[in-house]
C-alpha cells in the first residue's frame, strides 16, 4: 500500500511542484511548533512567576540592547515573544482545526440530508445557507461574538456557524449527482434502508472534494479568529492567540516597539500562506473537473 502510494501520480506531481513542496515544508514547521512548541522554549509565558518585569520591551537579539535569551525580544511583561508566539500558534491552529472539524461535520450532515431527502428540508437548509452567504462571514462572526462575549468555546461556535455553509453546499451538490448514479439504485434494490444507503454509499463518495475545502478553510478560520481577537471579541487574555498578540503589540507599535506586533503577524502570514499553497496543489490534484 505504501509503496503503491509512493509511486503514484499524486506523489509524482507533488515532487514536481515547488510551491506544493514549499507549502508543505511551512506546514511541517508549524506542525512541529504546535506539537512541540512548549518544549522548544525555556519560558512558559503565562506563568507569572517565570516573568521578569525588568526584561520588558527588550528588542530582538540582533538589535542594540537585545538579549540572546529573548531571540525575538519581549513584551511589556518581559515575556519572551518567541515563546508567546509558539503558545499563540498553538491556540490559533487548534481553534482553526477544531472549528473546521465542527463545520465539516455539521455541514456534511446538513448537505447530505438536503440532497438525499430534498423537499422541505432541502429548501429550508439551502435558504438559510443563501441568507448566510449574503453577509460577509467576518460580519456574522463579529455579531455572534458581541452577543456571546469572549472565550475559546464561543469562537468555535461562531466559526462553525460561519463555516458549515460551504460544506453543506458542496456535499449537497455532490449528493445530488451521486444519488442519480446506478449504484445507489442498486443499493435500493438490494433492500438497504435510507440510513445504510447514506452511510455506506453516499458518504464515502462525497467527501473527497471536502479535503480541499477543509484545508483552505483552516487558513480562513485562523484569519477570522485573529481578526476577532484583534478587535477584542475573540479569545480571552489568558489564552492569547496570534491575533491577540498582534493586538497587544499594536497598542505600542507607534512607540517604536514594532517587534511585539510584527513577529506574530509574520507567523500568521507564513502559516496561512503555507496552507493556501498546499491547498492549491490539493485542489488541482483532487478536483477531477480540472484534470
Amino acid at each position, binding site marked *: 500500500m505504501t509503496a503503491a502510494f509512493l509511486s503514484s501520480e499524486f506523489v509524482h506531481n507533488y515532487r514536481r511542484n515547488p510551491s506544493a513542496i514549499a507549502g508543505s515544508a511551512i506546514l511541517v514547521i508549524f506542525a512541529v511548533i504546535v506539537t512541540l512548541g512548549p518544549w522548544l522554549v525555556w519560558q512558559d509565558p503565562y506563568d507569572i512567576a517565570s516573568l521578569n518585569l525588568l526584561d520588558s520591551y527588550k528588542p530582538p537579539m540582533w538589535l542594540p540592547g537585545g538579549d540572546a535569551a529573548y531571540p525575538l525580544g519581549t513584551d511589556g511583561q518581559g515575556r519572551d515573544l518567541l515563546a508567546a508566539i509558539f503558545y499563540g500558534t498553538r491556540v490559533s491552529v487548534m481553534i482553526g482545526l477544531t472549528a473546521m472539524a465542527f463545520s465539516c461535520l455539521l455541514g456534511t450532515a446538513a448537505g447530505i440530508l438536503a440532497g438525499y431527502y430534498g423537499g422541505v428540508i*432541502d*429548501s429550508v437548509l439551502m435558504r438559510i445557507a443563501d441568507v448566510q452567504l449574503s453577509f460577509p462571514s467576518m460580519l456574522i462572526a463579529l455579531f455572534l461574538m458581541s452577543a456571546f462575549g469572549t472565550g475559546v468555546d464561543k469562537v468555535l461556535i461562531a466559526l462553525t456557524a460561519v463555516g458549515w455553509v460551504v460544506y453543506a453546499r458542496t456535499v449537497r451538490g455532490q449528493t445530488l449527482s451521486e444519488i442519480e*448514479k*446506478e*449504484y445507489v*439504485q*442498486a*443499493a*435500493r*434494490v*438490494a*433492500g*438497504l*434502508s*435510507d440510513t445504510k444507503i447514506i452511510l*455506506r*454509499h453516499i458518504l*464515502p*463518495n462525497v467527501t473527497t472534494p471536502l479535503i480541499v475545502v477543509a484545508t483552505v478553510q483552516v487558513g480562513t478560520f485562523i484569519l477570522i479568529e485573529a481578526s476577532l481577537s484583534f478587535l477584542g471579541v475573540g479569545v480571552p487574555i489568558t489564552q492569547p492567540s496570534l491575533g491577540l498578540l498582534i493586538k497587544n503589540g499594536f497598542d505600542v507599535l507607534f512607540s517604536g516597539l514594532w517587534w511585539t506586533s510584527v513577529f506574530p503577524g509574520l507567523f500568521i502570514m507564513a502559516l496561512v500562506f503555507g496552507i493556501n499553497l498546499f491547498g492549491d496543489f490539493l485542489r488541482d490534484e483532487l478536483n477531477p473537473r480540472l484534470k
Partner: protein
Amino acid sequence: MTAMLEIEGLEQRFHVGGGIFERMRVEKGRLRIPDRIVHAVNGVSLKVAAGEVLALVGESGCGKSTVAKTVARIYKPTAGTIRIDGTDISGLGQRALLPVRAKMQMIFQDPYASLNPRQKVRDIVAEPLLQQTRGRAARAEVAGRTLALLERVGLNAEHANRYPHQFSGGQRQRIGIARALSVNPRLIIADEPVSALDVSIQAQILNLMKDLRDEFGLAYLFITHDLSVVHHIADRVAVMYLGFVVEEAPRDTLFAAPRHPYTRALLSAAPAIDPAARKDEIEVTGEVPSALDLPSGCCFRTRCPFAWERCAAERPVLRDAGDGARVACHLLDEPQRDAP
C-alpha cells in the same frame, strides 16, 4: 398459474422544474406556479411468465427504463399495480419490500456507475444477500457463496478483494450480474445491460445471461433499444413509444410481421450487416414529441405516415391482433389505409 410479473395500468409521472421558487411565473399580471409534469409511463400492462424473457424495446425517452425502475420499486408508481409472483408491491414500503427483493433483482446499464467505487467486489456482490439474511448467515457461508458467484459469472476468487476501477466494462457488468444473482432471484430486470459495452463483450454478456437463464430458470424483463439483441434473447417483445406500449407479440411474429407503423419503422431503420436483411418499408420523419405535452389521440400520429383524423381524436387501445400479438393502432379497423 400466476405470472412471475404482472403489471396493470402502470402510470408514472414526474414533476419537473424544481421547487416553488424556480417555477414561479407571472402570467397576465398574476403570479402562477405551474405544474410541469413528465408523462413517462401512461398505462402499461405486461406479463412475464416464470422463465420467460420479455424484451421492452423503444427509443430514448419512451419510458422503458422508467417501467424497469418502477417495477424494481426504485420509484413509486403514480398509479397501477405491479404483482411479483402474485403479491401486489405497488404500494409497499421499503421494509415490506425486502422479501420481494429476494425474488426480484436488477442489472443496470452503466457498468461504471452501477458499482460503488469505494466498495470491494466481495462487499458489492454480498450486499443483497446480507440484507436478506440480516446478518444471521454465517460470514463464511456468505463469503463462500460470493466466491462461487464470481466464478459462475466468469471471474475468480482473487478478484473479490479488488475495487471496481481495476476492472474493464465487461468484467464490471459480470460483477453486477453476480450481485443480482446473490439472493437466488426468479426475476431479473435488466436495464440495457449490454448497450454500454463493446460488441465483442456484448456477445459474452448476452451468452452469459442466456446460460444463467437456462441454469436457474430466470425470467428477464429485458430493456433495450437494440433490435438485434432483442431478437437474440427475447421470447416476447413489447414495443414502447412515449410511455405507451404500441405493440406486443411473440418474437418471431413481431420480426416477421410487425403490425404497428412504429414497430415497422423501427425495424426498417435498424442498420444491418447483411445486405439481404435491409428493407426500406417505412420511414418516419420528425422527432419524438415531448413527454411534457402528449399529443391528443394516438401518441405516434405526429410521425406516422398513415395518420388520419381519427388518430388525433381517439387514443387507440392495445388489443388482440391475432398470432398472439396485441397492437394499439386504428389501422386494425381500416386496413385499406395501410398503403403508402
